[in-house]
């Protein structure tokens, strides 16, 4: 008695391909997000008149432990001017925005020097704050 063999056609799972692609995209998106400043602990100060700001090339953060970060990398205050100037390069006025994310309890001994150094580097400063709640 002869039995006919069923031909098993192997077809790539096209629907699963899209699934895999989206999983990969999500993986890289989340990986990129983890390399940002989310691990730096700081709380913004409150001020009136805060407006939405576009993302800038340069951001300087001072966390609750008084550590200074330039684009999420810890740096020293002494060479901040040169580093900011290097990041800004030859950008024309209007494209030299530097976001200042200073923890609300940082003392003047730290942030005044920082502001002076960013100003010396030619940065156009934008203080990242929370809208003041009344």
């Amino acid at each position, binding site marked *: 008695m002869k039995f006919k063999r*069923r031909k*098993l*056609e*192997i*077809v*790539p*799972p096209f*629907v*699963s391909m*899209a*699934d895999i692609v*989206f*999983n990969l*995209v*999500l993986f890289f*998106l*989340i990986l990129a*997000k983890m390399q940002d400043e989310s691990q730096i602990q700081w709380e913004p*100060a*409150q*001020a*009136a*008149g*805060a*407006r*939405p*700001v576009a*993302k800038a090339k340069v951001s300087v953060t001072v966390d609750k432990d008084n550590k200074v970060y330039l684009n999420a990398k810890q740096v020293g205050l002494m060479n901040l001017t040169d580093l900011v100037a290097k990041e800004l390069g030859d950008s024309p006025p209007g494209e030299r925005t530097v*976001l200042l994310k*200073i*923890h*609300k*309890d*940082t*003392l*003047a*001994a730290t*942030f*005044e*020097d920082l*502001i*002076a150094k960013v*100003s*010396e580097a030619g940065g*156009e*400063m*934008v*203080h*990242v*704050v*929370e*809208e*003041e709640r009344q």
Partner: protein
Amino acid sequence: MAAGPTGGSGGAHAAWVMNLLTDLAFNLLIFFVVCASSAQEQKGKPQQVPSTQSETKQTDTKPQTVEVAMTRTTVSLNGSEVTIPELRTKVAALLANKPKPEDKIVEVKSAKDTPYSVWIRVTGAIEEAGGVVTIQVDVEKDVIVK
């Protein structure tokens, strides 16, 4: 890679494809949620602080500048203690007759223990009153002792 069933009952095949499409839709949803969360806007206040070099040029012919001093708990305008709303009004009054930007300079002196939260509110009030904030920073100089 798993082989897709090409034969078998149509219902089982359709159910299998529907499962994959549901999975795909869920992934799309997560993708857009992650994109939206990373695109959150930040709010900020632009501030222009004249550079120290331009400030030294102005001290040669020094106009009468307004001085605001602040400590951890107090704010004073030209030596008189004020509240922040009063500061805004008084600075606006002092700068009212000064049309030139160089005449609107307000020197801000902060005690070393002044917190940033106080500083940003005071400088915000000064800028709302039309003043241009300059920071007085202690400069270290090397003195050669013979």
